[in-house]
Structure formats: structure tokens, C-alpha cells
């Protein structure tokens, strides 16, 4: 392994929307930032979403500009496909050991022409598309990926060499080795994001078994204008669904699953998806089985009421069990709470599980911060300084500290930038604070300055 | 919906829209896929108070058959600009009359950033005016100099 060493003001781990925002705020302030992402593109989960509640902006359209500004910022260095092995305090700073994984493509030479992709004969399931649709072994992660650089999935590669021949810049390099890098960072932001709770968490829902029981994240891809099929089809047979069910809290608010907390976003994304579905499948019946609809953010309740008035069927109910029929349809045993717990059998041809949010990584693998019992980064001052961690100089933001939506992630990411900037102290050549020349401060009043109390103008300086 | 396009669409509508209020409101209309006829052309402006009377006349001369001024109304971010704008409209009307142009072809409206329905209504009203009066070219009296 080759060794590199660099010095940096802030190391941001994770380049989802939270990591991007922290990096941008710090860089705008004049600090040097290294933004590290384990995947081959920055953007996190948000870049894979269809549209975002409640504005219904296309997710790609509002994420790509952020990705692009971070990637092009003078003060930000972005490393994708990079693992963090350890971050240890080292005097007033931190020593971070990182591994830049082998892409088998020289990033400096690759121009993103995709000729390797077109040449590669191997088809593999496309993770970005929720494994619906296919990609090649040599591929660019997805259309709006940043950087637009190819990589080779060496586990799927059959070493035919076609990509190597096709590449106009000789960027393909099967001999590439992982590079280990030591970074001296004066501070750290943990923005390692979330994973969804497993589709098969509740065995009785047949997630991962029945083909037409899908995760809401897959539905995001189906609803994306650039999704795997370009429209909403059900996976088992490509039929256009006409009776879709959403099962809320599928993996959250359940002590037995180790996820007793509410995941905060699944009510809202379900409402959003039902609205998008009723646009693309105007004839379909759409039912949401829920316990409580938690539309608590700015403009969210109004969004929920709009969905209701559009004819989306919201039913307060517990779904006990889902069974798959031979034709791929699904039978739901539902305890309808509004009707005194009557148990009904409901037929649907596609079921979306509103999966919850759990930590995207275990930060303890590489850094000694305190976590809460669910594995989210814990703040020692949760009410006044939610983005602090147990280690001085280390802040955390976004879903790494608990489930939350995009706007709350962005807010925290900026807050985390403030914490780090405070810790670092002003960058060199920062201007001096201005004095306001006012002297009736409460501290002087408390000190008994009678003039200050009376507020006569003599006390005013200047 | 304000209406699907009519078969006879030889007319054009201009909408001058304020950047802060109306333009996002019109965007929101499209974003919600609320349809309106495609013979509408929206051009942004910080504030329509900037247009002199002659600008409107120029538009009619070039074959714009109806103009909606989509302002912020009294929510204008600029002090007193709505009053100034409203005071100019009668002057534009006077010049339009002098040229034989029906003053119904110009309307001052206020469209906010969430006013999608109001926008559709204004468009369909102006479409109706244009359909009734026909192209402006048939109406205008020539002027010399």
C-alpha cells in the first residue's frame, strides 16, 4: 500500500446532504475541508429520492447543485470510495487513517465517457436502483453521480478486457491497489447517515420473500423520472399496480425489533409517494394503514390534508400479517382500529413497507464517541447543543444522530459547522470583531450602575 | 384547469412576473401540473414598475395580444412601488385608447408565490378577452412618427 499524508482543518465523514452542508458551511467560512464518502458518488440517500416533501421539488434537481458546489469548492477536497479506518486524538488534532479503495480506474484519467460501460458484457443488479434494473461490471454509479468517474466491480468482472480496449484514455488499471492515507485533521464532523430498517424485520410481512412487498426506498426509485423502468410497475410480473397498500411503522415503534422510536420521515414520505402514485396511476386505489400520521414539520400537515382531499385512503389500522397469493397479489390481515378492532382481509397487488431509519454506520468502528442505545451519536448537551459529541473537536449531524428529514438534517449540518468553527477558532486573517459602543448592558445594571439604569445618554460611549 | 388550448390560437399573451412573488407562483402552477394554454409567455422582472408606457405599446405593436402584469400587489418588497405602478396604468390605457387598442388587453394583477389558482383564473380571463377581440393587429390604428 502506498502512503500519503495531508493536513486539513476539518474532516467530514459521509457525503449525504448533511455532510455536504457541513462541508460547504465550513469551506465558505474559509476552513480547509476533506469530505470523505465510502460510496463511489457523493449525495447519500437524498440523490436517490424521487421528489421531496412537502415542496415536491425533484430530489435530483435540488441535490445535484449542492453536490456540485461541494465538489468544485476551492476549500473542499472530496474523496469518494474511501473508508475511514480510524480517527484518534493526537494532541490538539486528530490522526485519521483512511483507505482509498481500488476503483480499478484511474480517476485522473477517466473522462466519464462510459465507453467501458457500453463495452462490458457483464450485467449485475443495480444497487442504486434498489437492485431493479441492471448495471455493468464497469460502470458509472448513476446518471447524476459526482464524480462522473467509472469504477469496476471486481467481484462481478470476468476479466475479458473489453473495457480496457474501449477506454479512450487508458484509465482502466486492473493492477490498482488500495491506497492508505494518513490525514491530520484539526476537527471532525460525523455525518454517516442512515440505513433503512431491514425489509424482513417483521417476518409476518413477507418482506424479502414476496416479490411485490417492496421497501419505500425502492418505490422512490420507481417514482423517479430517471428510475429503473421509467414508470411504476410491480416487480414480480411488470404489471401496472391498481391497488397499492402502504404499511406504516414497518420496522419502527416496535420494542421487539429494537427500534422503539418513531423514524420521523416515513409518514411524510408515504404521503408524498401516494400523491405521486395517484398522479402516475390515476385509476389506482391507494390505502395507507397507519397508527398515527406524524406530519409535524413546517407545511407538512397541510400536505397531509391535501393528500386526504385527493382521495388517498387513510385507515387507522394494525396490519397483522401479509400473505402472498400465487398470482403475486397480496392478502393483508388488518385489524381496523377505527372499527373497534374488526379484523378484515384486504387484497392489494402491491405493498410498500414504510421502513424506518437506523444508523448508517457504527462510528465506534473508527472513533471513540459516545453513542446512544440505538447506535446514534449522542450529545452531552442534547437540548442546547445537539450536534456536539463526547469528544472535543468532533461534531455530528443529520441522521447519524437520529432519524430526521432533509430540512432538519441541513439545519443540524450548519449547526455542526458552527460547533467545529467555534472549536477551531477563526481562520487566519479573520477581521476583528466590531464594538457597538453601547454601554447599558444588563451586566452593568446588575453591577449597580445607576446611570445605566436611568439610561442617561452620558453612559453611552462615543 | 384553466382550459386546454383552443383550436384558434393565433393570439399571444405576455405575462410580466415579479421575481419574488409571481414568478414562483407561476412556477408552482406548472409544478402542480395545473395546465393553462401554451400561448402565454412569462418574462421575469424585479418589479414591473420599471416599464415605461412605451414598453407596453411596443409589445402591442409587435403582436402581443394581451398583457398580464403579475405584480406582488401591496406585498411588494419595494417601498411604494405598487402604488407607483398602479398610478401608471391609466396613462398606459390613455395611450392604448389613442391607438385604438382595447384597454381590456392590459390588466394589472397581484399573484403571490402560492397563487396558482388565481394565476389560472387571470390567464383564462385574458384568454377570453383575446378570443373575443381577436389579434391586436386588427385593432390598432397606424401612427406616424
Amino acid at each position, binding site marked *: 500500500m502506498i502512503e500519503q499524508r495531508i493536513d486539513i482543518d476539518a474532516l467530514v465523514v459521509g457525503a449525504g446532504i448533511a455532510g455536504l452542508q457541513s462541508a460547504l458551511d465550513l469551506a465558505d467560512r474559509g476552513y480547509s475541508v476533506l469530505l470523505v464518502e465510502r460510496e463511489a458518488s457523493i449525495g447519500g440517500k437524498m440523490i436517490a429520492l424521487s421528489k421531496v416533501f412537502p415542496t415536491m421539488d425533484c430530489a435530483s434537481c435540488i441535490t445535484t447543485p449542492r453536490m456540485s458546489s461541494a465538489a468544485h469548492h476551492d476549500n473542499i477536497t472530496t474523496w469518494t470510495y474511501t473508508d475511514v479506518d480510524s480517527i484518534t486524538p493526537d494532541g490538539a488534532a486528530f490522526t485519521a487513517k483512511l483507505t482509498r479503495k481500488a476503483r480499478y480506474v484511474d480517476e485522473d484519467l477517466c473522462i466519464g465517457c462510459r465507453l467501458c460501460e457500453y463495452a462490458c458484457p457483464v450485467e449485475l443488479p443495480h444497487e442504486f436502483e434498489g437492485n431493479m434494473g441492471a448495471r455493468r461490471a464497469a460502470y458509472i454509479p448513476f*446518471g447524476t453521480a459526482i464524480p462522473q468517474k467509472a469504477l469496476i466491480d471486481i467481484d462481478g468482472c470476468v476479466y475479458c478486457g473489453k473495457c480496457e480496449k474501449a477506454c479512450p484514455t487508458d484509465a482502466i488499471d486492473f493492477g490498482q491497489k488500495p491506497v492508505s492515507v494518513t490525514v491530520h485533521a484539526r476537527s471532525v464532523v460525523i455525518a454517516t447517515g442512515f440505513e433503512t430498517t431491514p425489509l424482513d424485520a417483521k417476518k409476518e410481512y413477507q418482506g424479502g420473500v414476496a416479490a411485490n412487498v417492496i421497501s419505500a426506498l425502492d418505490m422512490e426509485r420507481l417514482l423517479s423520472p430517471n428510475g429503473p423502468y421509467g414508470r411504476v410497475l410491480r416487480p414480480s410480473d411488470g404489471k401496472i399496480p391498481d391497488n397499492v397498500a402502504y404499511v406504516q411503522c414497518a420496522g419502527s415503534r416496535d420494542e421487539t425489533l429494537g427500534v*422503539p*422510536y418513531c423514524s420521523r420521515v416515513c409518514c411524510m414520505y408515504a404521503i408524498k409517494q401516494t400523491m405521486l402514485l395517484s398522479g402516475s396511476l390515476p385509476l389506482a386505489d391507494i390505502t395507507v394503514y397507519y397508527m398515527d400520521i406524524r406530519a409535524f414539520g413546517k407545511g407538512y400537515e397541510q400536505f397531509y390534508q391535501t393528500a386526504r382531499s385527493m382521495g388517498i385512503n387513510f385507515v387507522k389500522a394494525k396490519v397483522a400479517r401479509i400473505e402472498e397469493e400465487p398470482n403475486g397479489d397480496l392478502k393483508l390481515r388488518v385489524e381496523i382500529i377505527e372499527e373497534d378492532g374488526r379484523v378484515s382481509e384486504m387484497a392489494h397487488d402491491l405493498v410498500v413497507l414504510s421502513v424506518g431509519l437506523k444508523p448508517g454506520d457504527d462510528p465506534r468502528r473508527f472513533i471513540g464517541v459516545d453513542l446512544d442505545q440505538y447506535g446514534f451519536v449522542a450529545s452531552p448537551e442534547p437540548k442546547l447543543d445537539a450536534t456536539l459529541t463526547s469528544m472535543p473537536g468532533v461534531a455530528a449531524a443529520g441522521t447519524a444522530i437520529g432519524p430526521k428529514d432533509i430540512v432538519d438534517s441541513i439545519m443540524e449540518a450548519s449547526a455542526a459547522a458552527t460547533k467545529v468553527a467555534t472549536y477551531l477558532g477563526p481562520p487566519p486573517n479573520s477581521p476583528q470583531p466590531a464594538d457597538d459602543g453601547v454601554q447599558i448592558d444588563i451586566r452593568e445594571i446588575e453591577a449597580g450602575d445607576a446611570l445605566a439604569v436611568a439610561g442617561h445618554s452620558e453612559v453611552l460611549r462615543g | 384547469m384553466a382550459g386546454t388550448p383552443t383550436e384558434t390560437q393565433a393570439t399571444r399573451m405576455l405575462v410580466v412576473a415579479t421575481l419574488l412573488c409571481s414568478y414562483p407562483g407561476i412556477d408552482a402552477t406548472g409544478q402542480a401540473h395545473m395546465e393553462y394554454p401554451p400561448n402565454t409567455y412569462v418574462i421575469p422582472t424585479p418589479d414591473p414598475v420599471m416599464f415605461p408606457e412605451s414598453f407596453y405599446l411596443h409589445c402591442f405593436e409587435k403582436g402581443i395580444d394581451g398583457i398580464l402584469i403579475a405584480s406582488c400587489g401591496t406585498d411588494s418588497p419595494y417601498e411604494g412601488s405598487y402604488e407607483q405602478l398602479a398610478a401608471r396604468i391609466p396613462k398606459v390605457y390613455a395611450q392604448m385608447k389613442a391607438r385604438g387598442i382595447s384597454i381590456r388587453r392590459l390588466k394589472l394583477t397581484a399573484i403571490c408565490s402560492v397563487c396558482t389558482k388565481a394565476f389560472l383564473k387571470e390567464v383564462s380571463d385574458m384568454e377570453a378577452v383575446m378570443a373575443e377581440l381577436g389579434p391586436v393587429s386588427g385593432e390598432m390604428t397606424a401612427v406616424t412618427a
Partner: protein
Amino acid sequence: MAERRSKPKNQAATTAAAPATPPEVVLPVLAEKVGVYICHCGGNISDVVDVDKVATEAAGLDGVAVARHIMFMCSDEGQKAIVDDIQALGLDRVVVAACTPKLHEATFRRVLQRGGMNPYLFLPANIREQASWAHPHSPKAATEKASALVRAAVAKAQMLEPLEKVRVAAVHRALVIGGGVAGLRAALDLARQGLGVTLVEKSPFLGGRTTQLHTVFPTEDPARLLVHRLIAEVKAQPNLTILTETEVVALTGYVGDFTVTLKTTPRGVNAELADRQAAIAACPISVANEFDDGISKRRAIYQPYPGSEPDLPAIDWASCTRCGDCVTAAGGRGIDLKSDPIETTIETGAIVVATGFDHYEPRVGEYGYATSPRILTLPQVHRMLDPEGPTGGRLEIDGRVPRSIAMIHCVGSRQIEDVDEPGPDGKLHEYCSRVCCTATLQAANQIRQKYPKTAVYDLYRDIRTYGRDQEPYYVDASKAGVVFMRFANDARPTVELSDGADFPLKVTVTDTLTFGTEIEVPVDLVILSVGVMPRDVTGLIEMTHAPVGADGFLLEVHPKLRPVESAIPGLLLAGTVQAPMDVTESTSAASAAAAKVTALLAGDHVEMEPFVAKVDPSLCDGCGLCLDACRYAGAIAMQEVEIEEGVLEKRAYVNPVACKGCGACVPSCPVSALDVAGWEIDQYKAMIDAITAEPLTAGARS
């Protein structure tokens, strides 16, 4: 108007010599190498608009050097195409026909910069929101419209001139308005990062609404201790001035350099006051105590709670009669009844608005409110449950613990047209107040714990204990025997006084949890979980022109991406002034606002968009009519310029920092010497000419 005789900053104004003969009409020199890019938006545009046709037509226009259509213009690939063309073809203007400029104008400006061009030589054409999405069923007409919009953009682009940002020397201080948790948090973060900070609080005490709570959910930290910890840190900052009883009364200027006039009312009391108890006891006045949400009384000289910040009583001048009894009781020391406010003026680079929220005050009769002392609001009950509160923590009505209590959620929140009547402010409060569910259950659990014999009925629509540690309140309440009843989206419980009956109140609810049964609940006390309301900050809104949302809260630039910035540059939002939030969320928002302020004021200058008025000195004849049209002090003035060797004449001069770019001056000029840079009348005319250049063909639906 006083005229300054300083040298105008406007270069053009000083260098242009007036021509001896009237100027000939000079046709603008048009750019000749426009690059045009049409975006598919992954089908969002190209499914309706024939992008190939639009590109082909654009390629045929005069002055267009290249026209392409690309899958995602905003992607790296799209951006790179522009940069490559700038470098390879020497483009002099760029037009991108894609989504609304609100999304990507800034993105593409930066692309031009990367390519080595002036960023203001970019022009967008909106063919998504205003073509493909608005006319999905008329592809032919939408394509024609898109072409016309591209023609118009090219025509204007050809006339664009390079612009430079207006730069203002930045004052390295921030003003924070509001001394609640959000304001305190913002002030502390800013001061610690090396800015000067002025924190102003309208009331005589710091800490805001949080100090009215006993503990905060979900940590159950003692609320006042929590806030006092924050205040102690704030007070330890050397560059931070804290002014209580202070309001902003005037505001001028712009980001980087606002001038703010503050009005401070004297406290009336200072540290020399030896026996505050005696002074307070001597006061003959009794008024409703706002700190206890009206359930107790206080004097005109008062302190909300012992150890308040600052730990000194204050005089409420509105109710004080200047009788002097307190002064006598204090032995003449430590109290001064002179209440004349003083005004001070400060300069500040940015302003953080953290003015907080009000509790929704129900209409008289709304769920029986104000018709019985047994119908209280949740904040009032929180005060009663506070061991340091007016009742010492006892929840008693007429000296008796209520045997049964009904708590009603969503009062003044989630209101629906035709189901709810508007609030006393005449508005329908459609939003969810976010904090009341957890706060209600927190109180319900406390009541069940303290008074196990008291039955608690919780009437709700949805329980929104959304935070990670909030769900336990719901679980605990169920375990503690709180009886939940749920009313439907479009039905509301009623509260009636049942005089003479065993229980003085009767609550009727159609409970959807039990088959829609109508249930009558006899109770001793009804608690209304009132929502969070935007506080009335009309004065501030008028001074700053900050936009307000339909819900009455101050509006952010973008609800997803830019939640703490207002549309007014340099004006940031922190906490519940923007939307309902809990303490954690408010302090995070405040820290986020601090990040934006420090980035704005990071350098010696703040940069602003260059879209301001400009004078063509060769046309201006100094008539001065534009001065009357402009409403902004100092934006446009007359200055003497040397138009010829030794000949001084008056010419209009625009101060680019004070000018707002509204264009009100433009039509006032009889010789058309004025324009707003980037929005020139001739450019508009060229757009109209381009739109009308081709006859319409797509009359029929296609």
C-alpha cells in the same frame, strides 16, 4: 436633499465627456457566440418538448455558435459541456433552457466562472415549470413555446454586459433580536466565533418561554437551570452586549452594514436595591402575571421567579402609577422612577431574528374557553405543575384535586376549513404545532403520577411523539392508564358546562377507536393543548420587508435547503419565529443561523448582486425627476460632474449599495437615461421582438 460633493464612485459618470452634438442612436453591439443548451431533465422536459427541434432551431439563430441538448444540464456532464465549449469555441454568452432559474441560476453562473467567463453573461430560459409541466398535453405547442423562450433568451443574452458584484465593507457585528433559547444560542455561537454581538430582548428578563417550564422533554432537564447555564456562558463573552427592555425601532442599510436604532426602557431597579421583597410588597398595583399565563397576579414592580436573569426586579411602566411606595419601602435606594427611554444607534453586519412564538389563545367559547375557571390551557397547567410555580406544583381547582380531566389536542392547530372556526386573529391555523402532543403527554404522565386517583382522558387526532426519545411518553401514558380517545379529521369534541351535576363539565366526543361511539366524559377540568402561534412582529416585518408565509411564520428562502435564511440578505431566522420547534430544534436552528452569519461576514467585504440602477451620463440632462420616483434614501442623487474641461453640470448618480434595483426611477426619466443593470428595457424589447418573430402554428392540440 443635501448634496454631497464627494467624487462619485460611478466610474462611467466621471469619465464620460458630454458630446457636443446630440448623441446618435448607437445600436448595441450584439454578442456573436452564444452557446445554447437544452435540458431533457431526464424526461421531465423531453417527454413533452421536442428538445432536438428546439436545439436545431436555436442553432439557426443569428449569433448562436452552438446549440446542444443534454440529459441533465445541472449534472457534472452538463456543466462540463458548457465549460468545454467556452474554452474550445470561445463562447461569449450562455443560454440554458431547463428548469426554473430559481433552482439553477446560481449553479450555471458558477459554471461560466469556471469556464473563465463573467457569470452575468448567463441567461436561463424556463422550459420545464413554464412549458413541459404546464402544457403536458400539448407537446407541439409546448415545443413552439420553448423555442420562442429560447429565442427571447438568446436575444437578451446578446445584449448582456459583464457585471461585477457590489461590495460593501462588512461590519463585524451581528444583532440578535430575542433573548430566548434560540437568541441566546445564536448570540453565544457568534461571539465565540469572534464577532461582536448585540443581543436585545424586549422584556426585562432573559430566557423566554423555556423559563416557564419546569422540565424540558425528552431529557427532563430542569428548564430554568438549562437556560441559566446558557445565559451564564453568554454573559461570559467579552464582545457581547446584552440589552433587556430593548426594541428595534428603526432599521436602514443592507447586508454587511445595517444601521439599527434601538430603544431601551430603563429597568427602574438596580443592584443597590437592598430589600426587594419589601419594595415589591409595597406596590399597590395588581395585574395578571404573564409569566404564569394569567393564572396569578403580580405587582407593577416584579420578578417572574427568584433567581431570574437578570436577578433583579423590574418595573412594568405600563401599570406603574409612579406612586413611589416601592421607593419609600426601599429606603430611596435602588429604584428610580424615571422611565424615559433612550435611543441608541448601532451598526451591524447581519441580523438574527429569534423573536419566538406566542401560545394560541382560543376564542371565547372555543371548547368552552373563558366560560369556566375549570377550562385551562396546557401552558397554564404546566405552570401549576411546576413545584416552583404559583401553586407550588399543586393542580387544584377550588382547593380540590380534580377527579377526572380531559385533555384536548390540536386546539388552534391543524384547523380545517368548514370544520373549525378561525382563531381570534381571523386566521385558520392549518399547521401542526409540533410540540403539543409530547408536552400534553408529559403533563398527563405527571398528573397520573402525582394524583393516581385522577382519571385522565386524552382526546387526540394523531399522537405525534416523533422524536427519538418522545415515543416513551406515549408508551408510558398508555401504561399509566391514560384513556385515549380519538376524534376524526372532520369532527371535534364539545365541552359543556353541566351546572348542578356531580361533575361540572361534560365533554362529548365521537370516538373512532370504539366504532365511532359517542362518548360523554364527565370531568372536573378540561385542558386545552393550545398550539404555537407566530408572534406579532409586524413592526419588524415592516422595517425589514421580511416575507411572511401563509401560516404567519417568517418565510425562509427554501423550506428544504435554506431553512434559516430569509429572502432579505443578511437577515437570518432562528427558532420558532420560522416554524413551531422544540428547544433542541430551536437551538440547532440558531447555531445554523450563526453559521450563515459568520460565512457572510467572514471577509472584509460582503458581496451583493449587481442588479442596481445605472445612469447613462451621455443622456442624462440633470432634470432630477428620478429623485422623486425613488423611495430609498441615498439611492439616487444629483452630483456635479465635469462634463467638459471646466464645465460642471448636474447628473444623476446611483449609489449601488443603497439602490434596491426596483426600477421605479427608470420610467421617470424623460430621456431614458436610466436602466436597471441586467434588466434593461431595450433587452426586454428584444425579447418581445424575438417571441413575436415567428408566426404561431401550433394552434391545434397535438
